[in-house]
């Protein structure tokens, strides 16, 4: 009898605890179904409201939307590749900036042999860095942050040593005008006079990499590896290979971004790509991918990239100064990530 009474009390208490644990606010529900795109939508709505109030102009125009997408396309290319590293539980690849710089400067240097050899050489250079990271981190279990940071410094040193701290120009290196023009067009080629090539590349990458992550055997094994590497190993998954491939994917997307940024700036230089490592990590985290690995999606990362673009655009349209922009950006990041984490946890998920 007493046992039954105790049992009923316990049940009631558990019910109360469950109710507290699963009490989800409206934001949480929206986040559950729409993910980070709900936040992107909120920024979009904020822009529309500000425009309707006459505070900002021309926000909801095709040109402005194209501008936003243009502005984040290079960041998106880097972020979707680095997301694989994060998803595998290896945090981030900090060698991305110099991978971008090296591939760009190698391409410019090789333009003397034509456009195609330049691109091939750049891809090989990127692949080499990816392979080095893959072996060191995948096979020899080097700490990903320390190792990729070290690779970043070594690559930087190599670029400075080989090119004597100078920047090189495609139009001065290329032997033919055609090779120089083709390289110039990597960034400047526009479809329908509006959509730039990097944006097309980003869309293709998002579709392709999302398929790899969610629909293939490799993607499933990557998820298990990212969630619990030891458990994955015990189930027979070759975690060394799985992790290694993520660094190769990351290096290849960094190569694409490196070629794009070098084409835009018309110089091969060691500083091309500076800051893209932390910008990409920011987009990945905002996009809902956990740094612990195994959770999140490429589509989410794209959402994170779009939020960064929207936020920058609205702040400039509002006339917010550079320093205030940095502060507001940091504050909004904390808010978005915090609310997202809290809402998902209250729903019994720990994706953030």
């Amino acid at each position, binding site marked *: 009898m007493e046992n039954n009474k105790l049992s009923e009390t316990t049940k009631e208490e558990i019910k109360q605890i469950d109710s507290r644990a699963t009490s989800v606010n409206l934001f949480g529900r929206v986040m559950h179904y729409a993910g980070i795109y709900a936040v992107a939508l909120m920024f979009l709505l904020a822009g529309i409201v500000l425009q309707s109030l006459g505070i900002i102009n*021309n*926000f909801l125009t095709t*040109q402005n939307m194209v501008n936003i997408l243009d502005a984040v396309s290079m960041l998106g290319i880097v972020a979707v590749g680095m997301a694989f590293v994060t998803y595998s539980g290896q945090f981030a690849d900090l060698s991305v900036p110099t991978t971008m710089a090296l591939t760009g400067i190698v391409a410019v240097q090789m333009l003397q042999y034509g456009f195609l050899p330049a691109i091939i050489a750049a891809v090989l250079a990127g692949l080499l860095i990816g392979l080095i990271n893959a072996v060191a981190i995948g096979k020899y279990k080097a700490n990903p942050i320390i190792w990729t940071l070290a690779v970043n410094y070594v690559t930087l040193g190599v670029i400075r040593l080989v090119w004597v701290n100078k920047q090189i120009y495609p139009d001065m290196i290329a032997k033919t005008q055609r090779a120089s023009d083709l390289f110039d067009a990597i960034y400047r080629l526009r479809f329908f006079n509006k959509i730039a090539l990097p944006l097309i590349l980003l869309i293709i990458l998002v579709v392709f990499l999302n398929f790899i992550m969610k629909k293939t055997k490799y993607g499933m094994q990557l998820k298990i590896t990212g969630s619990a590497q030891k458990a994955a190993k015990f189930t027979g998954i070759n975690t060394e290979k799985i992790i290694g491939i993520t660094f190769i994917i990351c290096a290849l997307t960094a190569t694409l971004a490196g070629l794009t940024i070098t084409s835009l700036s018309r110089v091969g230089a060691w500083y091309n790509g500076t800051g893209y490592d932390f910008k990409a990590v920011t987009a990945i985290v905002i996009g809902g991918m956990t740094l612990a690995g195994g959770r999140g999606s490429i589509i989410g990362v794209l959402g994170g990239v779009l939020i960064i673009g929207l936020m920058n*655009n609205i702040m*400039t*349209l509002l006339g917010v100064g*550079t*320093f205030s922009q940095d502060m507001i950006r940091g504050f909004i990041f904390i808010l978005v990530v915090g609310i997202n984490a809290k809402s998902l946890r209250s729903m019994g998920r720990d994706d953030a």
Partner: protein
Amino acid sequence: MKKLVTILFSLLFVLAATGFVFAGGDSEVSESAGAGNLAASLAVDVSVLKAADGQALIKLEGAERVVPARPADPSALPETDPLHWWDMEFAGEITNKTNIPESPADGAIGKKITMIVHGDHPWTTACTNGAQKVADVYSMDIKIQSPNWDLAVQNQMIDQAINERPDMILLIPLDAKTALQQARKINKSGIPLLLFNMLPEAAAMDYAIGWTGPDDFGQMRKLSHIFADALGKKGGVAYVQHAPGGSPYFARCFGPISELAGYAPDIKVLDKQAPGFEADKTMQLVSDWLTRFGDDLTGIFASDDSAQALGIIEALKKVGREDVIVVAAGNSKVGMDLVKDGGLYAITYQTAEGDGALAVKTAADWFNGKEIPAITNIPQHMITKADVDSFYPPQW
């Protein structure tokens, strides 16, 4: 025993006497060598040296400037008043030189100098190339160090240089305010200091034998006149600023703003932002400006003619707004190509090689016993489509 002591004392006496003779002889040799060094050093002609762009490496014509009287309290004046910026623009013109070492006046040949720059950049490479060219003709032993934009590392390099006791330290201060502590420390060690390129806080000049570099405010004032004329002295302009911290952040934005307030008061300032030196970020900023201001935006003044200028031009091309007048500071290859193509209306001739060369030449002058002016500027010139060809090949 007595004999032994006598022999030892005799030996000591002979050694000492020999030492004195040799020392005296050496002093005579030193003096004569010093005089020879000075004569040879004074005979060195640096006017024949050329920069990579074919221009004279060291040229002082066109560098003169008029210094107005300092107002009682410049900071009390509005930012649109050119005299508000007096302390920054003319830093070093009024100095209270403290503990400045006497020149040895024994010639520059063979002197050991340490040059500490601000950071790695193609501009810096060109600057140090210029410095090396002058050091070579004087056979000076120059050690160049770069802290790669890290103030803590620059401070360490200063400590290391003080320990190594070179004949002079040449410094590009990374931060205008910290420059005062850096200059004091070097001054206290007794090693002569020459500041160059970046303007420090005025008080730092008290501890240096002099300062050499561009008259950034002056150049920007000149450029702003060309800019205003091209705009018909009307319209709305936006400023793409330099990185915060150093003097160019103020000179390349408030220089033209304060100048145009008097020269072309109908020109409105629409916005000013510091996106850094990335073409993609500048492009995004200018695209957003075009959305925000539309046709009201008729001119853009940029702090950098390389990545910033490219970003601006790409953003304008995207929306077919090639009517917007763009001017920028600097004369990189990218900037000169853009002037040639017509995208940029004008840029400033800011010789990077000449900047480094002038610093070493001033150091040599000091070793030669010459009087060093508090401020020595590199020449000013505005490059437009009309004369851009004469500045090829670019220095960086």
